């Protein structure tokens, strides 16, 4: 009986009707190629439906629970909330792109002087209207091999998101901050879509900061960021998830790197009820350097799932992964890291490390490294450790006069520091250190 239910295809009730409505209204004025892409993606999603736990990629993460509600994917810019930008922003001097429930917030501060040719704006405006040549060239191009149902769903449903174009050799001095705010009193599915293009030799630092404010009903954020790092370009991309417990966040970053490029990511998950992150990086040129760092802290019955996939398609590339998790109470975590090395990708260095601390007997973590290596002259390694807090260290600190609480905190901060130390933006690092300290008080 259970098997029959599990096998049944699940399509959220209002989805099909709403998609047709969107095609007739919101998407009506879009170019044909885009409408076609949306329809194809939607059909492909319908074929799969919301995956059950029998789906290998969703084995430890119950995504049907998330999509069980009566949410709507039709919503507009309207909201009653007035963002306090000073409070929500991490870097005071950053160039800010602010989105509310997936829509660009009208008062985003974009008055910053930018290097010539640089575009920092929104998908609906700069992407669709100003530079639709770029949009058409790039949209979906990082996703060829990816048929994840939620990426398909995002491709069908997105309204807006960040559109960042860095022409060859450009280097905006200031950090670019994408702030996504969830708010409101209705159940909804928001589908922000970001496109980041760094041409040859371009450099930038980007923070994507997801928060919630006055969020009273359940919201599913199904976001996708496509990132193109061309020859010799350097991008730092930091993703911070800190929404309240009404938020369910599915996110995919899909990046393509060309020769001699450098891509640095850090995924820090401190909030939300439920999180699933896919980070897929495709190394398509020689001598690429890529770093995947992550930190997640969960308590109560929060769930955090990080899936990474690094595809080594060319020789002399280096990938380095470090993910750390601190799980308290009944929370659950997943780390699944896949490294794929093509036959021609000789002299690959690929490392992966997943370290976790469980603060209670009821917390669980599932870690799964997957290495597929077809080249014979490579250095690849993976390591995973899960343990409790070091009792000897705890006693040592207490014997010096530190209270149990502050000794515990100090040890956990030190555990998290490895990941936070990789962040190259001081304001962000300080912000996260303070936030982590606050989150560790459970």
């Amino acid at each position, binding site marked *: 009986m259970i098997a029959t239910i599990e096998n049944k295809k699940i399509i959220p009730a209002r989805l099909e009707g709403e998609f047709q409505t969107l095609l007739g209204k919101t998407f009506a004025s879009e170019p044909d190629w885009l409408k076609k892409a949306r329809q194809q993606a939607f059909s492909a999603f319908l074929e799969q439906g919301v995956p059950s736990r029998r789906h290998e990629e969703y084995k430890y993460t119950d995504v049907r629970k998330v999509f069980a509600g009566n949410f709507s994917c039709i919503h507009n810019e309207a909201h009653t909330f007035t963002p306090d930008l000073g409070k929500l922003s991490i870097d005071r001097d950053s160039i800010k792109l602010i989105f509310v429930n997936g829509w660009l917030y009208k008062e985003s501060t974009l008055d910053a002087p930018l290097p010539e040719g640089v575009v920092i704006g929104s998908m609906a405006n700069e992407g669709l209207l100003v530079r639709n040549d770029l949009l058409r060239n790039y949209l979906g191009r990082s996703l060829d091999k990816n048929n994840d149902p939620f990426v398909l769903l995002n491709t069908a449903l997105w309204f807006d998101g960040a559109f960042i174009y860095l022409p060859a050799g450009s280097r905006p001095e200031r950090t670019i901050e994408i702030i996504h705010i969830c708010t409101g009193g209705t159940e909804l599915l928001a589908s922000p879509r970001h496109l980041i293009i760094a041409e040859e030799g371009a450099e930038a630092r980007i923070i994507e900061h997801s928060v919630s404010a006055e969020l009273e009903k359940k919201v599913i954020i199904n976001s996708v960021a496509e990132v193109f790092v061309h020859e010799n370009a350097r991008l730092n991309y930091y993703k911070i998830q800190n929404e309240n417990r009404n938020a369910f966040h599915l996110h995919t970053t899909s990046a393509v790197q060309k020769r001699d490029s450098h891509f640095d990511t850090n995924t820090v998950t401190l909030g939300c009820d439920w999180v699933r992150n896919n980070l897929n990086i495709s190394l398509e040129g020689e001598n690429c350097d890529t770093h995947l760092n992550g930190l997640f802290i969960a308590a109560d019955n929060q769930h955090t799932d990080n899936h990474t996939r690094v595809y080594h398609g060319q020789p002399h590339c280096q990938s380095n992964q470090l993910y750390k998790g601190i799980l308290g109470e009944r929370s659950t975590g997943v780390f699944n890291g896949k490294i794929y090395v093509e036959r021609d990708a000789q002299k690959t260095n690929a490392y992966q490390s997943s370290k976790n601390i469980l603060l209670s007997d009821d917390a669980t973590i599932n870690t799964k490294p997957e290495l597929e290596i077809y080249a014979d002259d490579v250095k690849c390694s993976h390591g995973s450790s899960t343990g409790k807090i070091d009792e000897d260290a705890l006693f040592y600190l207490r014997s*010096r*006069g530190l209270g149990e609480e502050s000794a515990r905190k*100090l040890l956990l901060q030190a555990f998290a520091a490895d990941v936070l130390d990789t962040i190259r933006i001081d304001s962000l690092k300080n912000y996260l250190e303070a936030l982590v300290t606050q989150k560790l008080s459970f």
Partner: protein
Amino acid sequence: MLKIKNLQAGIPGREILKGISLEVKPGEVHAIMGPNGSGKSTLSSVLAGREDYEVTGGEVLFNGKDLLDMSPEDRAREGLFLAFQYPVEIPGVSNINFLKTAINEIRAYKGLPPIEAKEFLRMVKEKQALVEMTGNLANRSVNEGFSGGEKKRNEIFQMAMLEPTLAIMDETDSGLDIDALRIVANGVNKLRSKDRSFIVITHYQRLLNYIVPDFVHILYDGRIVKSGDKKLALELEEKGYDWIKKEAVGSV
């Protein structure tokens, strides 16, 4: 200062300390010697509050208060310090930050405001010199990658920073070469005062050439079987632990 009365303790199913009594007065240095397995480290662990050990009898008063009833941190805040036999490496926690937190928590316990940054730095500089530590060592993670000698010097440095009234040194000399031993002993000697007492636990008489004790106690099979002054240590050095073992067996 410290009164141990008929202390019995062990791990579940095995009694290790079988009734120890000892009184330490302000300014005194007591050496506790004994063969391996006699209960020396158990005694220091029980006094510092390690939870692996279970106290089955007796009592310990520290400045009139029931020591065994206190948490490890409260014992430290009351002025007890344990120099570990095996100091723990704690990656990511800086020596200096940790000491500052420790000092401030001890001060808060005593109702004092946090230490001023300037005063703290002055103290660090002064106390480092005591154990010939370089600035670099103090800024590193607690004991991480330290040599054996550096770890023990760091223990004495912490002791100097926290200014305890009773310091227990658990085999601080074990495994040290003569130069490191001299540095550690010099540090301790400079910290001796009429208000500060020491319990020096050691396996070897060598340390007591540098830190001259007022009293020497010999621990064997969980009991203090002999007490005397510093001459007892020399006698032990000459005759070896077999002498004690035979006497102890003979007296049963």
